[in-house]
């Protein structure tokens, strides 16, 4: 098999594709632009919303029978909250977002505290609403502190040791590496986008180089050349693979850069930093790219084979659109929390790559699974390439009328 023929076809297809606006957009523009848009856009948005909510002085209603002035005074001591007198429709006002929360001080509360009787202070909030949660959390935290102080005062008054009501401390410590923490959050996200973009990057050139050629009438021209059909289709395949890999590489690079930029931009804003508190090492990036390699071959050959069956660009697009769902579903499954590995899953293409990449980004390398997945995806990819090459030799496929 002449390498130079394959290279000649490849070089021409590359030149040709780089002059095609659709291919350029899907291969270069989309992966470069999408991540800054998603990451910077999303994090700026979140930081802004959270920041605004934190800055707001929430209005909180104190609903009281009027016989517990001490409790009311204590509440009013909380800084950063605008307390207003109670009204009977407080629940409605919380729903209407006129006030953020309400505290119900029951009748006889002060007296009950003085006589060591237990009563309940109720905080009303609107679950799921950020500003309401901030207000109620603040009040709850303050009241918990007050509770502790009251207990300490009572113990002191009876000459009892402070540890009596607080026999031991509980402390939670994280042992997972920082990437493991971030992995849980964005682990599914990285491979998902790389896989999807790998597919979309290969899509347009695959159609353009097959169904597109049929539509434009150049397929017969190339078939008159002395180059064997296997070499022609391999040259085309290499071009589609290049598009898939370039897209994946640009996507990974763009994602890395934009997360770093987002991190730098958000520096000092704690709430945003918590979101961005992760790191993806070069090793993980390299490993993800390595796992995506056979998948890119599978996509390129598969798309080429499908697009070859079509007579026109439009027909090819209608065949490939449902394929998107077939690819997106297993990739999304990798995003689901709680989806974990087993040997059978390692044989499901796309899903297995999505899952193993999620683990890699999270800092865990299951070498046996990595080997099985890489090998099985290679087998699927070879099969797809074999099908594409076989189809390209069939007259009824090339000259379908």
């Amino acid at each position, binding site marked *: 098999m002449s390498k130079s023929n394959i290279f000649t*076809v490849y070089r021409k297809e590359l030149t040709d594709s780089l002059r095609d606006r659709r291919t350029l957009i899907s291969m270069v523009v989309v992966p470069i632009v999408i991540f800054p848009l998603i990451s910077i856009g999303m994090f700026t948005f979140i930081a802004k919303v959270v920041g605004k909510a934190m800055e707001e002085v929430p209005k909180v209603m104190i609903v009281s029978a009027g016989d517990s002035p001490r409790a009311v005074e204590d509440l009013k001591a909380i800084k950063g909250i605008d307390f207003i007198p109670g009204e009977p429709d407080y629940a409605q006002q919380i729903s209407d977002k006129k006030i953020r929360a309400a505290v119900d001080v029951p009748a006889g509360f002060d007296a009950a505290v003085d006589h060591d009787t237990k009563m309940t202070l109720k905080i009303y909030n609107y679950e799921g609403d950020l500003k309401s949660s901030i207000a109620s959390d603040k009040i709850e935290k303050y009241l918990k502190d007050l509770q502790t102080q009251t207990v300490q005062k009572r113990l002191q008054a009876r000459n009892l040791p402070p540890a009596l009501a607080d026999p031991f401390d509980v402390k939670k410590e994280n042992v997972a590496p920082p990437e493991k923490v971030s992995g849980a959050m964005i682990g599914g996200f990285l491979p998902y986008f790389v896989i999807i973009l790998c597919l979309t990057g290969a899509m347009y050139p695959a159609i353009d180089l097959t169904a597109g050629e049929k539509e434009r009438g150049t397929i*017969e021209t190339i078939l008159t050349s002395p180059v064997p059909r296997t070499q022609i289709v391999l040259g085309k395949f290499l071009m589609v693979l290049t598009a898939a890999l370039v897209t994946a590489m640009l996507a990974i690079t763009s994602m890395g850069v934009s997360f770093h930029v987002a991190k730098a931009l958000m520096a000092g804003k704690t709430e945003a930093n918590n979101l961005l508190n992760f790191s993806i090492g070069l090793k993980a990036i390299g490993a993800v790219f390595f796992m995506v390699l056979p998948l890119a071959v599978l996509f390129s050959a598969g798309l080429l084979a499908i697009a070859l069956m079509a007579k026109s660009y439009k027909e090819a697009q209608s065949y490939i659109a449902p394929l998107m769902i077939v690819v997106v579903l297993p990739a999304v499954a990798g995003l689901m929390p709680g989806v974990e590995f087993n040997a059978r899953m390692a044989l499901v293409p796309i899903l297995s790559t999505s899952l193993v990449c999620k683990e890699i980004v999270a800092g865990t390398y299951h070498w046996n699974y990595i080997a099985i997945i890489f090998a099985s995806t290679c087998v699927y990819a070879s099969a797809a390439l074999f099908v594409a090459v076989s189809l390209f030799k069939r007259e009824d496929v090339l000259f379908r009328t």
Partner: protein
Amino acid sequence: MIEAENLCKVFQDKKRGTVRAVDGVSFVCKPGQIYGLLGANGAGKTTTLRMLATILEPTNGTARVAGFDVMTDAQKVRANIGFLSTSTALYGRLSAYEMVQYFGRLHGLEDDVIDQRINALFGRLEMNEFRDRRCDKLSTGMKQKTSIARTLIHNPQVMIFDEPTLGLDVMAARTIVQFIRECRDQSKTVIFSTHVMSEVEKLCDHIGIIHGGKLLAEGTLADLRQRSGLHDLEDIFVQVVEPHIAKETVA
């Protein structure tokens, strides 16, 4: 030289079932001669020529083109032919120069040889003015010239033209006819298909009338006139084909 021997091509069509597009076609076309394959649409001209160009594989029979068998030496056949048809389009995003250069490379020529040949061809065909213009920006005539240069870049011995003037204006068609003559003058073997009688009368040394995949009559124009007792080629064509159309209608 082209020697077709009992060429057959059978297709399976969903609607029509088994279709014998070409059914036992045999003929010989010698160097320095133009062989005209005359037939109506669907007669089997394109399929015959595609088999000679090894784009399609014969179901039965074979042909030797430039000394090589289409069944066993397809690659060598293609290396020695220039094939031009209305369906051999140009790559729109390549320039005229790049298009011809690409085919030179596919024929295994070195870049400096390709450059020399392109310069000579582009000069002869008056293509220098648009050599760097993208093919999709060329006029029909310019495209046709680029296609001609594409078929000639490897200096083939055999030229195969499938309805090369179809859809062209008078001037572009003239360029093609002139070019076909030049090929004969250079002692190339030329076969071309058409349904335009005047082109056949003007150009062909040998004529084959094809209908329903079968070669019904063959010979020089003088032979055909003598056998039919008619002068006008169109009349001769109708005389040859009509009985078969009548049979098909009855069937």
